[in-house]
């Protein structure tokens, strides 16, 4: 599970300690993004994290970037997101198969089923702005299509981005930007239409 959800783990005396066990960060508690948290891990030997002294109780300084991925690991939102993303990846794959079999109706039905997963996926945006950015882009893209079925290239791109998001749901907003570019490159519009209209007015 951990390999597919980019959870940070620390090795201590040969056993794995999930970072989210840090009691200083309770579920749902927000921290300023630029802060770092000091946590104590006795006898941690892993050179990756041993910034303090070589022995005894060590004070480890963990950046927000290191902590953040684990804050919502295995939270209900994380689990729901993985479940829905797995469904969405399957739907997009089946849509591609249907197009290959020249069955446009089935392809469109699969896309509809994918589309209705998006509002709940957006409710899982506590996983991060990267996650929210990509789901928002999907929602906007489908809104802009206004019921039209995406073409093969677009569905392939959707499938690729969904798969990546399933593998890295805690991706950063900057990483998400690159994925949104993939959607843009196949002609999908990643912004809510009314917002674009508003921003384009003088």
């Amino acid at each position, binding site marked *: 599970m951990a390999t597919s959800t980019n959870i940070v783990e620390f090795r201590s005396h040969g056993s794995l300690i999930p970072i989210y066990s840090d009691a200083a960060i309770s579920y749902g508690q927000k921290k300023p*993004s630029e802060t770092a948290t000091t946590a104590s891990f006795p006898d941690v030997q892993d050179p990756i994290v041993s910034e303090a002294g070589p022995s005894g109780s060590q004070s480890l300084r963990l950046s927000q970037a290191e902590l953040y991925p684990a804050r919502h690991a295995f939270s209900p939102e994380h689990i729901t997101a993985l479940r829905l993303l797995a469904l969405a990846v399957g739907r997009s794959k089946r849509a591609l198969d249907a197009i290959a079999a020249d069955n446009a109706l089935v392809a469109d039905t699969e896309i509809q089923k994918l589309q209705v997963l998006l509002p709940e996926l*957006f409710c899982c945006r506590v996983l991060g702005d990267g996650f929210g950015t990509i789901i928002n882009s999907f929602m906007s893209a489908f809104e802009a299509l206004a019921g039209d079925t995406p073409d093969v290239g677009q569905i392939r791109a959707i499938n690729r981005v969904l798969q990546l998001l399933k593998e890295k749901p805690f991706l950063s907003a900057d990483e998400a*930007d690159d994925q949104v570019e993939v959607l843009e490159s196949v002609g999908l519009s990643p*912004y809510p239409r009314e917002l674009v209209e*508003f*921003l384009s*007015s003088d």
Partner: protein
Amino acid sequence: MTRAYVETTVLADALLKPGPRANAAKSALRRYDESLLPVYSIKEFKAGPLAHYVWFHGKLVTTGSWQKTLGQLRKTAMSPFRMRWVSTAIEALEAAEHKDRAITLGHLVDKYGALATRDVVQCDRYRLSLRRIIMRAWKKRRQLTSTVVHELSCYPEGDIVEERGLIELGEVDCCPKDECCLAEELRRHPESLKKMKAAIAGQPRKDENVKRSQVLRTLTRPSHKLTPKQCRYLGDAVFAYFCPPDAVILTTNTTDLIPLAEALGKKAEAP
């Protein structure tokens, strides 16, 4: 060889207005063999349209509500500091909000609480969209044209960063040690300054024209030091003055720029 000298409005269209406006700006740039972006455009872009977007984004972050942000947009549109966002544009957003009200997210609200309410969903969708538009615009600013020209030694372009969810623009003005770095070059051709001042005199009397005219007049006095604020007031005159003779100023603000450009025997065009 055709060359375009890119003014702030075209830069803003290309980078901040996804859709038809950006496409029009970008295809206009492609019509020329070479496109030149003066750093003065970047400076105006950051202090103007980009700052407006950052303000909008900040309202979404701090209110956490689309309804409250919309209220702020309405107020701002009526204030003396109003952005060029007319009420009809806000109506488009309101219409979308009313349309979406018909869709019930009741079961999601039961499960996810406030995060699934229409108001917060809308707020976050716009916030995430704006964040991406702003960050990408800044990242791509120097990649839009074939060349970036006329660097400003007194302007620290700086990077924009995110702090506590808000986007921080950093310094937006020049920080000259003595005076604005453009002053010396502008004083080399006092006749051009006079011609531009005369051209402004023939234009409608509006605040920005009055200020520009005053700065052009004071620039001819050798003892006067050009301040960052005056540099900002010069605005369109900078583009008219510094545009190479063989280039065309590309701008959506042709009303103000054509008279200034023509006074110096240059051309300004809309995309």
